[in-house]
């Protein structure tokens, strides 16, 4: 049986293992849904660039990443029938080990990237972004670093012709990078005895690092957070960022498949 048939069979089965995962795109993509919740409230409101580029749900991508890519890592280890991830069941069926992992990756990346990708594509229809920067330095930096941006007369608002496309592309890129990082972490620690604790520890770090950077920013001042600075870097080197992310995705996937196929269960 060829790999595509195996993959399709496993994908169908995967949805049966945990039907609730179908709601995950909504969980990951809450920021995309906010504008639909209260159009009147958001009408004529132009947030700062910092607000536009941030996404509080990144840690969810990591958290659900572990549950989707290697649920047995977070499990109790005793293969409880009711909540078993079914790995032993699948590995004793006629499938190649690496295809089992590939099916999990396909589900994970599809769920994580579905909404950002849709938003990215729809941004081509309304590419213009308007942001408001009240701080003088921040206002000037946006004008300097966002190509084609124009300051509006007698206001702090800036119009960025392809700003929306860039922001949605940035979000998609960040989602992809977090997902790749999660996959690397999961399969690095997979064979370790204390893998569950390492993963929980990683979450603690992911959750608290933004808080720590925010505190540093407040204490030391400065117009932009590291995330905004990174966004400017992304804008300046978009082709390189995309090529790098796609190459990393392919290499990480191949590495994980190879590692997984050599691991015991």
């Amino acid at each position: 049986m060829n790999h595509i048939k195996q993959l399709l069979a496993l994908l169908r089965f995967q949805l049966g293992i945990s039907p609730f995962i179908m709601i995950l795109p909504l969980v990951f993509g809450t920021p995309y849904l906010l504008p639909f919740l209260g159009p009147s409230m958001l009408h004529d409101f132009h947030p700062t660039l910092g607000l536009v580029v941030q996404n509080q749900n990144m840690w969810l991508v990591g958290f659900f990443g572990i549950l989707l890519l290697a649920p047995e890592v977070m499990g109790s280890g005793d293969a409880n029938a009711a909540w078993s991830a079914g790995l032993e069941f699948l590995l004793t069926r006629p499938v190649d080990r690496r295809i089992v992992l590939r099916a999990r990756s396909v589900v994970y990346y599809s769920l994580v990237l579905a909404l950002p990708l849709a938003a990215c594509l729809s941004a081509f229809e309304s590419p213009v972004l308007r942001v408001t920067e009240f701080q003088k330095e921040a206002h000037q930096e946006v004008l300097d670093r966002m190509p084609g941006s124009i300051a509006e007369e007698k206001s702090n608002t800036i119009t960025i012709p392809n700003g929306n496309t860039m922001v949605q592309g940035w979000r998609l890129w960040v989602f992809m990078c977090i997902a790749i990082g999660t996959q690397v972490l999961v399969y690095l620690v997979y064979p370790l005895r204390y893998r569950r604790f390492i993963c929980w520890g990683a979450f603690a770090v992911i959750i608290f690092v933004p808080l720590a950077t925010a505190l540093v920013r407040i204490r030391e001042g400065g117009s932009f957070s590291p995330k905004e600075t990174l966004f400017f870097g992304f804008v300046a080197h978009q082709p390189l960022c995309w090529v790098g992310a796609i190459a990393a995705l392919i290499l990480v996937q191949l590495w994980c498949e190879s590692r997984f196929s050599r691991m015991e269960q």
Partner: protein
Amino acid sequence: MTTDYPILAQNVSRAYDGPPVLRDMNLAVKQGSIYGFLGRNGAGKTTMIRMLAGLIKPHAGEVRVLGRDPFTSGAEERQWVGYMSEKGIIPGLVRVSNALKLGRDLYPQWDGALADSLIAKYDLSPRKRFMALSLGKQRLLGFVMAIAPRPKVLLLDEPAANLDVVARREILDDILRLIRDCGCTVLFSTHILSDIERVADEIGILAQGKVRASEPLDTLKDSIRQVRFFGFKNGLPAEDPPGSFRTVRGVDELIVTLRINADTTPESVARSWSCQYESRALSLEDIFVELSIH
């Protein structure tokens, strides 16, 4: 060798965190036979079966199923090996029908008619999720998933656990039927000795990390006997006879559990000790206990 013995393990050792569970273990299961695997809890039966299923690797020695290393074998080889785990390994939210669909999708030789007949016979509702089934029914579904591809090798880890007597007999009958139909080779572990006696052609008793005995039930019963030696003319001997598993010393008698072979028979031992003897056959349970604890 490969075709004669679809299941082979040679000098296999395996440890987890502590001392080895299996030590230089050898196992060879003949084509078309039903091999009953006996052992105490923690003796290494599940470890051996998981190794044969390709889930774990031996730390030393080699394992072969249908002539291939099961850990590295791909889909082509795996489709001929049926496996039923000791635990319910099908994910809890999966419906019975989804599990069967996966079987149909993955196994080119999946016998849908056999699967459907077993599902009806075991009264498994296709709409039910695995977690909603009773433990016994979960085992039965696991059995259907293992047997419906009509495998060449069937590995069953405690297939009768959590089953009532009727369901247990049904499973055993189905194993026998499968053997008759397609000459499948079966290895199954169990604690229920009556099951072994009912279906197994050959029995392996695993203790101290090794297969202590591996032979047909009748041969095993004939070759291991309990012998009472008495009427010693020269007093009780200090040494145990060769081939003895256990010796109980009385005031003027020895009760020896003895493996009988060409060199060691009750007669030859009695002759060398200048005494008389009485020999009695042991039940499988007695043999199992003798081999397991000594």
